C-alpha cells in the first residue's frame, strides 16, 4: 500500500510541475501585459519603466525560475490588476466556490445516484426511462444556456430566487448558504447529475449479472437485501473515484456559471484575470485549482486502492 501511495504522490507532483510549466509559458506566448495596465495615452517610456519595475523585461527563463522558486514557497506574486498578493485573492474567493461546488455535487448525488439505481434495477421501466432521460439532458444541455433560462423563469418571471450574487446567513461565525445558491448550483450540477445517473445505472446493470448476485438470490435473500448488501456496495467503489473527479470538475468548471450569476468565486476571478491578462493571478488560480483537482484524484485513488486490493497491487 505504501508503494502504491508513493507512486501516486510522485505522479501528482510531476503533474503539478507540468501545470506550472504549461500555464507560465502559454501566458508568455501572449506577450507581456504591461501595455494593458497603463492609460492608452501613456508614452512608450512610461510603459518601459513599468515593464522594468515589474520585471517583464528580463529573459523568460529567468522569469520562470523566479516564478517556480517563489511558487514552491507558496508565493505567487502580486496580482497586477489588484495590487494584492494573488494567494490572498484566491483565499478570499475560495469559500464561495467551495459552497457552490459542494451544493452542486450534493444535488447531483441526491438526484443522480437514486435515479441511476432505480433505472438499473428496473431496466425498461418508467424509472429507467426517467434515468436515461435525465442522463441525456444533464449531459447535453449547455450550462451557460441553462443558467440564463433559469434566471429568466425562476428569478424574473416567478421571483422565487435572486437573479445574481451570493447571500449568506451568518450563524456562529459561519457563512451558511441561502437560496441564492440554488439556481447556480442546479445549472452547475446538472452535468454531473447526468454523469452519475448514467454511471450508477450501468454499474448496477453490470453487477446485477455477476455470479455473486446470482448466489445471493439463490440463497433466498430478499431483493432489497441483495441491492443494499451486494449491488450497492460494489457499485460504490467506482462511484467514489467518479465523485472525486466530479468535485474537482465542479470546483474548476464554474467559470461560466460564476460569471453569469455574478457569483464571487474563483471562476469569476479567473475569467476577469484572463481578460485583463493578470499573469500572476491566472498562474496562481490555475495552479491552485490543479492542486485541488490532483489532491482529490489522489484521495480518490487511495480510497479506491484501500477498498479494492486488486488496484493497489497493480492487478
Amino acid at each position, binding site marked *: 500500500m505504501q508503494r502504491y501511495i508513493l507512486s501516486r504522490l510522485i505522479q501528482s507532483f510531476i503533474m503539478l510541475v507540468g501545470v506550472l510549466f504549461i500555464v507560465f509559458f502559454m501566458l508568455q506566448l501572449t*506577450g507581456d501585459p504591461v501595455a494593458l495596465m497603463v492609460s492608452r*495615452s501613456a508614452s*512608450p517610456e512610461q510603459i518601459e*519603466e*513599468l515593464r522594468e519595475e515589474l520585471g517583464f523585461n528580463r529573459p523568460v527563463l529567468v522569469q520562470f525560475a523566479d516564478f517556480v522558486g517563489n511558487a514552491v514557497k507558496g508565493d505567487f506574486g502580486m496580482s497586477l490588476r489588484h495590487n494584492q498578493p494573488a494567494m490572498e485573492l484566491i483565499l478570499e474567493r475560495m469559500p464561495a466556490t467551495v459552497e457552490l461546488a459542494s451544493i452542486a455535487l450534493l444535488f447531483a448525488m441526491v438526484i443522480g445516484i437514486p435515479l441511476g439505481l432505480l433505472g438499473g434495477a428496473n431496466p425498461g421501466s418508467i424509472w429507467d426511462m426517467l434515468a436515461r432521460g435525465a442522463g441525456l439532458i444533464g449531459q447535453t444541455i449547455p450550462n451557460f444556456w441553462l443558467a440564463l433560462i433559469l434566471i429568466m423563469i425562476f428569478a424574473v418571471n416567478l421571483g422565487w430566487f435572486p437573479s445574481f450574487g451570493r447571500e449568506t446567513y451568518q450563524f456562529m461565525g459561519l457563512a451558511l448558504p441561502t437560496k441564492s445558491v440554488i439556481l447556480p448550483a442546479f445549472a452547475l450540477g446538472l452535468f454531473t447529475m447526468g454523469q452519475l445517473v448514467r454511471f450508477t445505472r450501468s454499474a448496477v446493470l453490470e453487477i446485477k449479472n455477476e455470479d455473486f448476485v446470482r448466489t445471493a438470490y439463490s440463497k433466498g435473500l430478499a431483493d432489497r437485501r441483495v441491492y443494499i448488501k451486494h449491488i450497492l456496495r460494489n457499485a460504490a467503489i467506482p462511484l467514489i473515484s467518479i465523485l472525486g473527479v466530479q468535485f474537482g470538475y465542479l470546483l474548476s468548471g464554474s467559470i461560466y456559471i460564476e460569471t453569469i450569476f*455574478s457569483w464571487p468565486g474563483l471562476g469569476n476571478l479567473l475569467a476577469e484575470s484572463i481578460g*485583463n491578462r493578470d499573469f500572476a493571478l491566472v498562474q496562481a488560480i490555475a495552479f491552485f485549482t490543479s492542486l485541488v483537482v490532483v489532491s482529490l484524484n489522489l484521495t480518490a485513488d487511495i480510497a479506491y486502492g484501500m477498498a479494492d486490493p486488486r488496484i493497489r497491487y497493480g492487478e
Partner: protein
Amino acid sequence: MKKLKITSIVFMLALLSLPCALSAAPQGTLRVALSAMPNAIDLPMSSERNAHNVSWQIYDPLVWTNESGKSVPALAESWTVSDDGTAYTFKLRKDVVFHNGEPFNADAVVFSWKRGTGTKMQWKDKWTMAESVEKIDEYTVKISTKGPNPLMLRMLSEYWAMVPPKYHAEVGENGFQKHPVGTGPFVFKKWKKGDRIIFEANPKYWQTGLPKVKTLIFRPIPESATRVAAIKTGEIDIVTRLSAEEAASLKGASNVRLITYHADRVYYIAFNNMTSGKGKPTENPLVRQAMNYAVDVDAIIKALLNGHGKPIAGFITSENWGFDKNNKPFGYDPEKAKKLLAEAGFPNGFEIDFAAPIGAYTNFEQVCEAIQGYLEAVGIKANLDLMESGKYWNMESKKELPPLFGDSWSEATGESLPRLKGALGGKKASYSAWSDPKIDALLEKIGTTIDDDARAKLYVEIQAYMKENPPFIYLYQPATFEAANPKVKNYKPRAAENYYLKGTSIE
C-alpha cells in the same frame, strides 16, 4: 413665565426646522450594477471606467467640470492662472475634512500629487503633467506645468482625487487600498471582493444637502443579460453598458426607465505610416480618401448596431470642444472611391493586411468583416486577421499591427486632444501608428493655446486637414444604453459614461 416663553420659542423653532432637516437627511439605498469589478477604489490605480465611477463617489477633486463643460470650484474655492499659462494658484476651502477627521489642506494636495506620480500608478501620466505642486500657505497651492496646458483644469477634475497624507502614512499603501479615505459625499464602509462595495452617506460632507441617498451599493455583474434580469426583478436600481438588443428587450417594461446617449467614443480603422504601412499604397492620401468613400458606414450602423450610432466625420465628436458642424462624414460613394484609386495609380486596387481585435467591442468583428467586403467591392483585397484582444493591444502598443487595423478610443475630458495625441502622436505615443509633421504642429499648438475660442479654431483647422489627409477610415460613435428603476431620480450619466451619484435620490 419668561422661561416658558423661551422654551416655547425654542420648541417652535425646532418644529419649524424639522421638515427642512428631514428633507435634507439622506434616505434609502441605491444599488448600482457594474459591468466589471473595480481593481481599486483609488483614482491613480483604477484601471477602467467602472473603477473610476466607484472611486469618485468617495473623493473630491480641486475643480469639477459641470455639465456644460465649464470648470467650477470643488475643493478649491477659486484659482488664478499666470499670464504664461504655466502656473495655477488655487485657494482651498477651509471647511473640509477627510472621512477620518483629518483636515484637508495644501499638504494633502502636495501629497496626493506626489503619490499619483509613483511608478506603479496606472494613471501616472495624468499627474506628471504637473511639474511641481507647491504649498504657498496652509490653504493655498501652486501647480506648475512645463508649458501652458489648456486641459489642465479638466484633467484635475477627471483624475486628481485628494487623499489624506497622515492617514496614508499610518496605514501604508496596502492599508489605504483596503480602506480608502477621501473627502467625498460617501464614506467607504465595506468591500467584499467580487461581490459588493458598500458606501454610506458622509454626514460631514461640505456640500450641504448632499448626498441624497443614505447607502450606496455597487454590485459587479459582468454578464449583461444578468444585468437586464436584475433591473427587471428590481434587485438593482441602475444598470449600465447594455447592448442594443437588451435595451430593446426592456422597452415597455413597467419598472424600467431606459437611458440612451451617444458615448464620447469613436470607432475607426487606422492606417499605419510608421512601420508596417511604409511603402504601402495607403501612404497616398487619395487612397485613404477612397477607402473612406468605399465603406457604407450608415448601412453598417443599420445592420450591425440596429441603427444605434452615428457616423463620424473625424476624431472630434459633436460633444467635444471645437467640433466643426460643417465637417460632414465622407458618405458612401464607391464610384468616387474607384475614381480616386485610379487617380492615385491603383485602378485595379491592391492587397493589404488588416487586423481587428476579437471580443473587445460589440459586433466589431462583424463590422470589420463588412469593411473587408466593401473594400473588396472597389478592388482592395484586405486580408483580415482577427486576434485575441490582449495580444492585439500588446502588438498595437509596439506598432507591430498590419498597415490597416481597427480600434476604438473614448475620451473622458470633453476635449479630443488626448485622443488625437494618443492616436496620432507618432513615436511619442504608444498606441499611434501615424506620424505627420503638420498634425504634430497643429496638436502642439492646440496643446498650448489656453484661449478657448482660439483653440476651437485650431480644432476646426485640424478637422479639415484630417479630412483631406485621413489617417483613419472614420466609422461611428455608438449609442450607449443604460436602464434605471423609475424610483431613481436625478441620475444623469455623461458622454464619457461617468456619473456622480451625490445628487441622485431614490423614492
